[in-house]
């Protein structure tokens, strides 16, 4: 009993000590943005954002949110405090996924129907370049060292390596079918790529642009075609990486040193995208068809909470 009380007490201290962060979730079918207090496990409010919001990112200074409103054919700039729209970026048609560069002054958008990546100058709010890539570009990521923009095309099955300075494609790597999301490690030495159809995660060496490891996910009791890896994130120390497995309703925990799958964590339905808390002690997942987000405590590697947010949660961004 005493132990329990102590445990509770410690938990309370820990909770109190955790920073009050805010989680923003795009709701594809509600045309809205959900604002969540993850520590309290509460949906604070939902604000209208535009037609079919999907990709979302926060500026490095945490002042602005960028939200791709696909059916409005733009990326909106939202004040992260007031949640009011402050501007729009010329994203091209039907923007879905995009990536900010580390400096936060450029934004790279995948234009799926046109086989293009559009480079946007955020300050001037104009498109500075369009880069021809493979058919149906989807995943996009920038390397923390600012050298690379990686773009994956779903039908061409390639990762295109775009030089972040010249905006020219330098190399292409063939990968497993329907590559979805991309994530660079913090040291910019590896690029992690998920393949929705093969049910795999590929680790690419940035120097050689070659696949150095392919991990095939296999969840007991879940048929192979349900395992559709999508979102991928790797922690700062490259200890562990996490992959959302779509309709398998699991997040895979991967040892980023040995590339072993350590665990599959059961989350909500059709888990899509992932984001760390600023201190990387928690992971947030958007669960498309169960209309909630899951909170994963990374120290204990357990799912601690789920918070209902609205219809078709898609993207997630976190503000400290």
């Amino acid at each position, binding site marked *: 009993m005493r132990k329990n009380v102590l445990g509770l007490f410690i938990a309370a201290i820990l909770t109190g000590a955790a920073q009050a962060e805010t989680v923003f979730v795009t709701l594809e079918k509600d045309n809205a943005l959900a604002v969540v207090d993850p520590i309290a496990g509460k949906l604070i409010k939902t604000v209208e954002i535009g037609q079919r919001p999907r990709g979302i990112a926060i500026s490095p200074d945490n002042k602005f949110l960028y939200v791709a409103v696909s059916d409005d054919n733009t990326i909106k700039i939202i004040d992260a405090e007031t949640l009011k729209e402050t501007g729009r970026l010329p994203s091209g048609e039907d923007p879905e996924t995009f990536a900010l560069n580390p400096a936060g002054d450029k934004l790279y958008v995948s234009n799926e129907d046109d086989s293009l990546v559009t480079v946007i100058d955020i300050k001037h709010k104009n498109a500075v370049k369009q880069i021809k890539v493979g*058919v149906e570009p989807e995943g996009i990521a920038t390397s923390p060292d600012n050298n690379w923009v990686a773009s994956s095309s779903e039908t061409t099955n390639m990762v295109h390596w775009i030089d972040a300075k010249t905006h020219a494609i330098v190399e292409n790597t063939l990968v497993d*079918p329907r590559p979805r999301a991309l994530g660079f490690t913090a040291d910019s030495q590896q690029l992690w790529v998920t393949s929705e*159809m093969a049910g795999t995660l590929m680790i690419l060496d940035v120097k050689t642009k070659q696949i150095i490891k392919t991990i095939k996910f296999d969840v007991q009791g879940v048929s192979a075609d349900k395992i559709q890896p999508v979102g991928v994130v790797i922690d700062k120390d490259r200890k562990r990486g996490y992959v959302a497995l779509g309709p398998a309703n699991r997040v895979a925990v991967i040892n980023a040193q040995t590339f072993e799958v350590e665990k599959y964590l059961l989350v909500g339905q059709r888990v899509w995208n992932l984001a760390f808390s600023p201190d990387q002690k928690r992971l947030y997942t958007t669960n498309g068809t169960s209309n909630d987000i899951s909170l994963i405590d990374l120290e204990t590697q357990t799912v601690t909470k789920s918070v209902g947010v609205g219809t078709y949660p898609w993207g997630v961004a976190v503000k400290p």
Partner: protein
Amino acid sequence: MRSINLSLQKYFKLLFVVQLLNVSFVYAGAKQTINIAYLTQEQKVPPPLSNLDAFIKDKGVLGAGLAIDDNNTTGQFTGQQFVLKKFIVPLDGNVVDTFNKDIGDQYSYVVVNLPAGLTNKIADLSAAKQKLLFDAGTIDDALRNEQCRSNVLHILPSRAMRADALAQYMMKKRWNKWFLVIGATEEDRLFADALKRAAKRFGMKIVEEKTWEHTYDARRTAQSDVAVFTQVDDYDVLVVADEQGQFGEYLEYRTWNARPVIGTQGLVATAWHRTHEQWGAVQIQNRFKEQAGRWMEEQDYAAYLAVRAIGEAATRTKSNDANKLKDYMLSDAFALQGYKGNPMSFRSWDGQLRQPVLLAAARSLVAVAPIEGFLHPKTELDTLGYDQPESTCKWSK
């Protein structure tokens, strides 16, 4: 002056090197060409059954065109160029002549959109022996069994695959007692055979079987004939085999008892449907519509997949050699993305593309087969159609 000269010289040298690089880059960019022929024959316009759906005479070819564009988008990064040449034989023309004369030895890959008889006639020509043919037109089980040819791969789901897909769904819904209604054509009889096979496989019961012999005129058929025709012993579902759509549409809402209609009308089994939008399908629906100005039909989808299969194999093998590509396509490594979730591949025993089958109503996608719960030791996709032990195709590969 001297130093200026020197630096100029250096400049020119540099320019020369840059140009050399440029040239070699350009050459590297187009070192391999993959020539693909598309062969079809014009079709007679059938008598219109209703004025709702206009006759589409170019089913197939536009799908091949879209796939060539996709292949070439990929090809710009791999140094491969894909060329599609279309051979559309007029109604009174001779397909065999066209194949011998025009396709000859210039094309290793031929997408064939022809009826079953002609498809095998082409496959048996000596000019076809070293080629790889992609059948994007037939759904005949015979061509995938006793009449199979080692130089032909089949893209569209066979009648057996469709019937199995329907049967799985009916089993899930516990529509166990079928009233089978068969049209008068040979194709209808073949589909009825596939349905009977499926009923047996999945333990369904055909409690009544009738052939439609009434008029095909909607004005008098609908109310009177259907009601009388469907006064049979009790059944759960009316299963119709009417591939040309001569009467099947009249059955729904007019049966004596209130029963759903499934088969070639009502809930249909198909490779592609305009209601399908999962797994990125919306993207290809949009891309196709933009190019073609109409919805993508099954044959368009089949031709698209055929040309994409060639592209995928050429990209992965970095080759344009037909034997190499065929080996790769029939290997376990081959995985074609066809916007239906599961990766697609060819069955090594009969050349059939294994794929999910869509079950669609006119305006909504109802289910995708294999239906959850139907298991298979290798891949659940092989619960549809002729599995390896059942196949009577004997290939001397």
